[in-house]
């Protein structure tokens, strides 16, 4: 008996308790929110097995068991079997569409009796393990060889393709977050920055074409402003001279002032686009002159970034206008720009109303009306944050966001204290997934991101997602627990 107890306590010894506390808080918060989201005034019970909350409680119980089992298993097992686990999951993903029963166009669920599992959720930890295994290879340095990039990107892309084939665009996009890991391990920050810039330019250029500023579509105008800011920032960063930035800012501001005076008080028609483009061109010449004078060739990156951004912006618009109207429509729907026929835009509007009506302290638990009236779709899964925003108000939202930030920062801290590359890379994978899900899900609910249907970790209703994230987190905790024995 004593022996057994000491065994249990040794399993929980050295576990990172702050992470577990945040995990439990989020999961419990999830049950109450799911209950509120599917609450019916007439007939309801928190633990009823028919209700979503009752099922979620059952899944949480299993999740705890899974977490405990993971802590029991020797940490070296995961490292040893990283590739076999990855390959097994890939095979499962290949098989899934053939044995899955389709739910509204998606073929990603496998049924076991009354229960359904989504293998895509389990691809997350498998891919993280494989990536960590790759990076922990003997004297592996990402930037040393181009083939290292090929291997890393292959590991990431394989599940993406297979999950796309199941019609689960949202889950597939999640893996893009792993580029954060590549960045941490040495990939140039410029790549990450350019990729984000490209996405922003693409979306903004297509999204805001209805209105115009100074005769330029609002989207393009905003991008041009952004390009000016980036030029200024980059030239300061690479020259380490603030006066260059100051000069550029003064130049841009005066051009803006002149444009405003000409069009506003004077009421003249001016070729604003040409003027802005030429002012950027002049700024480029100025930067080139400065870079030659100060012998800082890196400053030219600022010019390059500006030119590429402008070229990209115009080619996006040009290419987009070449498409057939129905293809344009399709892209707009996928990006959540245009309201599709089932009204994704309408849904986001409803979700904003629900959150907005919450006020500072919220309407009180179970008193939300917007979510109760079932105007918000998927309110117990992807739109669960809505319920919190409505019933708990700004304070509740702040607490939940705070919990996620604490979790993500804690995982990063755990990552950095790992003695081995394997543990660190794996931990960064975990952090990246959380970052992506957090940003996209909450951004979608409050109308800042396109509608991409992915769950909010630990809060959204659903067994697969809960178990997937639990496995992800507890394998990390196991590595972390073992780090001291590794040092010895």
């Amino acid at each position, binding site marked *: 008996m004593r022996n057994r107890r000491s065994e249990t306590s040794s399993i929980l010894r050295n576990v990172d308790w702050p992470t577990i506390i945040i995990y439990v808080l989020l999961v419990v918060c999830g049950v109450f929110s799911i209950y509120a989201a599917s609450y*019916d*005034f*007439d007939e309801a019970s928190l633990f009823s097995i028919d209700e979503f909350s009752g099922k979620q409680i059952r899944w949480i119980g299993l999740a705890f068991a899974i977490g405990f089992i993971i802590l029991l298993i020797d940490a070296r097992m995961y490292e040893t079997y990283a590739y076999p686990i990855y390959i097994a999951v890939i095979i499962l993903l290949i098989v899934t569409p053939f044995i899955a029963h389709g739910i*509204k*166009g998606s073929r990603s669920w496998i049924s076991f009796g009354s229960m359904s599992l989504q293998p895509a959720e389990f691809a997350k930890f498998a891919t993280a393990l494989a990536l960590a295994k790759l990076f922990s290879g003997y004297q592996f340095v990402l930037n040393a060889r181009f083939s290292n990039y090929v291997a890393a990107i292959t590991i990431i892309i394989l599940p993406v393709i297979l999950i796309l084939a199941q019609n689960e665009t949202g889950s597939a996009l999640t893996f893009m977050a792993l580029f*954060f890991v590549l*960045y*941490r*391990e*040495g990939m140039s*920050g410029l790549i990450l920055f350019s990729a984000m810039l490209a996405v922003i330019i693409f979306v903004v250029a297509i999204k805001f074409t209805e209105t115009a500023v100074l005769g330029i579509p609002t989207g393009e105008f905003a991008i041009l402003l952004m390009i000016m800011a980036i030029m200024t920032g980059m030239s300061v960063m690479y020259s380490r001279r603030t006066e260059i930035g100051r000069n550029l800012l003064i130049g841009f501001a005066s051009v803006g002032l002149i444009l405003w005076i000409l069009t506003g008080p004077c009421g003249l028609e001016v070729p604003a686009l040409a003027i802005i483009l030429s002012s950027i061109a002049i700024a480029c010449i100025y930067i080139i002159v400065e870079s030659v004078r100060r012998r800082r060739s890196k400053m030219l990156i600022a010019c390059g970034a500006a030119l590429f951004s402008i070229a990209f912006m115009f080619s996006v618009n040009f290419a987009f206008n070449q498409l057939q109207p129905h293809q344009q429509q399709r892209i707009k729907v996928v990006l959540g720009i245009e*309201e599709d*026929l*089932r*009204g994704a835009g*309408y849904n986001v*509007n*409803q979700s*904003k*109303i629900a*959150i*907005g*009506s*919450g*006020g*500072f302290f919220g*309407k009180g638990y179970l*008193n939300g*009306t*917007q979510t*109760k*009236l*079932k*105007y918000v779709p998927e309110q117990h899964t992807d739109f669960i944050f809505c319920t919190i*925003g409505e019933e708990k*108000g*700004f304070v509740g*939202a*702040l607490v939940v*966001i705070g919990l*996620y*930030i604490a979790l*993500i*920062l804690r995982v*990063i801290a755990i*990552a*950095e204290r790992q*003695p*081995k*590359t394997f543990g660190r890379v794996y931990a*960064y994978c975990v*952090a990246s997934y959380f*970052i992506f899900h*957090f*940003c996209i899900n*909450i*951004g979608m609910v*409050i109308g*800042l991101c396109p509608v991409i249907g992915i769950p909010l970790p630990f809060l959204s209703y659903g067994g697969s997602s809960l178990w997937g994230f639990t496995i992800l987190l507890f394998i990390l905790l196991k590595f972390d627990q073992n780090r001291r024995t590794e040092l010895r």
Partner: protein
Amino acid sequence: MRKNYNLEKRKYVISGFIIVIALIYLIRLFDLQIQDSRYKASADSNAFLKKTIYPSRGLIYDRNDQLVVYNQPAYDVMLIPRDVQPFDTVDFCRTLNITPEQLVKRFADMRDKRLNPGYSAYTPQRLIAQLSSQDYGRLQEKLYRFPGFFIQKRILRQYNRPTAANVLGNIREVSSKDIENDDYYTLGDYTGDLGVEKSYERYLRGQKGVEILIRDARGRIQGRYEDGAHDIEPVSGRDLRLSLDIKLQEYAESLMVGKRGAVVAIEPATGEILCLASSPGYDPRLLVGRERGNNYKRLLDDESWPLFDRAIMASYPPGSTFKPTQGLIFLQEGIIDLNTPYPCHGGYINGGLRVGCHPHAAPLPLKPALQTSCNAFFCWGFKAMIDRRSKYGSSAAAFEIWKNHLVSMGYGYKLGVDLPGENRGFIPNAKFYDKYYKEGRWSANTIISVSIGQGEILATPLQIANLCATIANRGWFVTPHAVKQIQDTVMPAEYLERRRPTIDLKWFEHVAEGMRMAVTGGTCRRAALPDIEVAGKTGTAQNPHGNDHSAFMGFAPYRDPQIAVAVYVENGGWGATYGVPIGSLVIEKYLKGTIAPDRKPMEEQMLNSRIYYAKPKK
């Protein structure tokens, strides 16, 4: 292990990134929840009512732009259970002409999750479907007394003429399976059932719109949300123009009254179906409105199967209307030439087998054989082909070639008509007989009756009409179709392309000539019209259900065919008894518009004759 401290700094970039995002989100939330008053204004448990606006369904016209199917409004009484307050039930029942018991039952049904799986106390539920316009008017006036109730306008179908129900189809409420298969539908929507309503559902239905209304805490509608800025306009469905001539359809149906069977007429050059009558038919208006359920059940239980579209769903032995295909195959395969004579001693007598025939001059070549519908000729030809081992190697190999020719003429597989439920008919293949008689144990004589369209051979009236159109065109056809035009859309290519059987064009003229001779001096003399050259072929098909089936196919005018028609009358006796008169009347009506005076008695006879069908044995 050496750490790269330069890279370790990147943790600050990643951490910084997520903190900045979180800050942006918090600012946004602050703006949504505290700054923006638009959302706060609706904080007192106000809510929106998302009302579906149903688009009007596409109208259906016939080929002469006669309106056939149009829309009529109906009104559903809806309610949101949570918003309903105690109301004057007596007044409510009196307004709608129902008894309180009926009302109580309706409420119980609505709450029953087995009958209404989508029930929720917070979303609109339907209490009573399809009010009459009088009831609607009375309720509309008093609606303010019944908070929580509202009226939803729906679109029902209405028909100008009691005809063509099998082609037009009707609309029904969607089933849970429809909802699962197609995101467009929600509970209570309508979808096309049978006919073009089903096959062209995607074009006819249009796009639903949404109207967003604001209501207060008591469920009272306060007006439109932001003046309809977020509403979605419905898009009307597309109109269809049928290839059907609705008057010809009506005429064909009237000729078939009292008989079971089908009349199919096709415009040969385009494959457009001019009429597709199935008898007995039914009035499409029976399947509209509140009585739909009862009427549907009654039609389903009717032992004469009015819901069964015999024109495309029934497969009959084609009988002698099949003989032209045999002539074509024998010519193509070089089994006969135009002058090859075969004997007929009152039938085909060979190897202890006898297939009877009626008296006529013999021996005779192909054209007179078609003219007199000689059974023996086609049996001899069939034997010559199937048993010609020197050319084909085996009977089975020869039979496969024979079968492939027939398939190319549209037999044995669905033609691909744009109506649901088409039957493929039946043409056996060699394997079928190998299994039935054991491999190598059968030859032409074993299966001789297929050569005269009996035995295993089955075809739909549509396939027979299509063969007639192919001969009228002298060697090609267009897949038959009932819709000529879809508004703002191009017809699918399959209904525009010519399909070519594997028979050389040159042979068709001779078969057509044989069919012309059958009218001028053969089995279908009654089909002759005063100033139009008609070509035709009778069929008399033996069957296990009683008297022979009476069949006919014919086209006219002979030189420039405008119409190809097939008639099939169950248990009608000789082809010349019902098939020929009905077919020729349809041709005359279509080409001339009226029936010649000396043919009026024949028309009278067809309109009034009835065939007695015994009740099927249970």
